[in-house]
């Protein structure tokens, strides 16, 4: 009896220790980056481009590039991923092939991103030059499995009875998909979208090869065809090549806050749709 109590006590203690260590590590990392980064976030940093003449560093181009690359990637990856998911879930009859594709998609999402970078460089940068476009297309390949799988999972949660009800009223296949199935899986599409944005913002290896390091300010369309660094790539460059740790930590703090917001919005989307489902 006593032995048992001691044993339980020790195990409990060990668990508390592990939990608090994990929590402390996260808090420390967060605190460290924010404390070192936030004081360096100035309006000048956010609103200018770097100039050697003025001896000034600005990350506006990097912010713009990040936005461009997110938009360009999503424009391509969303229709592709959602389309593929709808085909696999609603049309494909050969379940073996569907399973094979799902397996391939799962494997694809586990490959280190630098390999995507290498392939993207050969496929896209060699054709479109080192550019935001080449980077975005590389990210499309990287995120396609994510978008496809989250959409698919969410398609599977659309009750079969909705489809039956719609078919029973004489709706054709495409009308059923457009009016009943797709609205029902909107949460999956949005989740896939947010996860992709998170991955795009956090990606560096694949972009080093394909989108380059430039810090010029462009509009969306010229931006697509010119090289450009995203925030994450800029962080790497400033820290590693230029030793500008103040700037690097400022960017790090911004990225951290963005990640936090992205996680929050995923949770909120989940909650919102869960609520809408059980009115």
């Amino acid at each position, binding site marked *: 009896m006593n032995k048992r109590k001691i044993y339980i006590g020790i195990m409990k203690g060990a668990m508390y220790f592990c939990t608090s260590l994990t929590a402390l590590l996260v808090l420390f990392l967060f605190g460290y980056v924010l404390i070192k980064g936030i004081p360096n976030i100035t309006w000048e940093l956010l609103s200018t481009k770097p100039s050697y003449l003025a001896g000034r560093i600005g990350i506006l181009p990097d912010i713009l590039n990040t936005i461009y690359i997110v938009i360009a990637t999503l424009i391509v990856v969303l229709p592709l991923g959602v389309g593929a998911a709808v085909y696999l879930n609603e049309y494909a*009859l050969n379940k073996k092939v569907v399973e094979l594709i799902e397996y391939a998609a799962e494997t694809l999402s586990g490959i280190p991103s630098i390999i995507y970078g290498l392939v993207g460089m050969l496929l896209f940068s060699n054709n479109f030059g080192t550019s935001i476009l080449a980077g975005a297309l590389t990210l499309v390949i990287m995120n396609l499995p994510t978008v496809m799988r989250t959409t698919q999972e969410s398609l599977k949660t659309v*009750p079969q*009875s*909705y*489809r*039956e*009800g*719609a*078919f*029973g*009223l*004489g*709706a*054709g296949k495409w*009308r059923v998909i457009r*009016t*009943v199935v797709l*609205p*029902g899986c909107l949460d999956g599409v949005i989740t896939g979208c947010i996860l992709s944005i998170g991955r795009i913002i956090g990606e560096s290896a694949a972009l080093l090869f394909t989108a380059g390091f430039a810090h010029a300010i462009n509009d969306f369309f010229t931006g697509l065809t010119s090289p450009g660094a995203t925030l994450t790539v800029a962080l790497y460059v400033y820290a590693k090549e230029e030793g500008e740790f103040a700037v690097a930590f400022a960017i790090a703090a911004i990225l951290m806050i963005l990640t936090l917001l992205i996680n929050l919005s995923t949770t909120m989307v989940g909650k919102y749709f869960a609520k*809408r*489902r059980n*009115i």
Partner: protein
Amino acid sequence: MSNIITSKDLCLWYGDNQALKNITVDIPEKSITALIGPSGCGKSTFLKTLNRMNDLIPIVRIEGEVCYENKNIYDKDIDINELRREVGMVFQKPNPFPMSIYDNVAYGPRTHGITNKAKLDEIVEKALRDAAIWDEVKDRLRKSALGLSGGQQQRLCIARALAVEPKVVLMDEPTSALDPISTSRIEDLIMQLKEKYTIIIVTHNMQQAVRISDYTAFFLLGDLIEFGETDKMFSNPKDKRTEDYITGRFG
């Protein structure tokens, strides 16, 4: 009275498993036909062959004929969407779409090309009145249909089916998920509907079959054992197995 649906030597397989065996039956127009029989005997399967809902299941294979208004609905040149408009369906579990009450009822008419707002309003109101739910929902047409009670949802689904002006309405145990009060409201409704529609209803409830139906078909293990006027079948069954079933000796 003429027959609106007739099936001849209808056989159906799920893969290698035969679920319907040579079903031959004539269903009279503007009447209520009840399909009864123990679980797994093929009632739902038979019902779904009548508007080709079995097409949604890839492993299904069908032989024989089902004629709707003297035309075989398994012919190649049949417009399945038009068939399902004329032969509508209400399911066991109420399945309103996650949209407003109005949009649920308007879904069918919109599917078949009606876009005029005034016309849609008129159809929606008429269908909801026919389904005896208008008074309960007229002030909340734009609210989600999922907020209705189970019985209201089922009447909404009936309204949704009526909104495309079908001639036949197939119902698969429409009251089995409902409380007694909702059930009796829906039974009253079904009896009113037979003035305009032909109703074929699956039920596990013998009293219900007796209360509402004009004809009854008794299925057992994929065979149609007996078909006839409900009063006669329940007072004087021809087949021993029918007698055993309706007197509650099995099933």
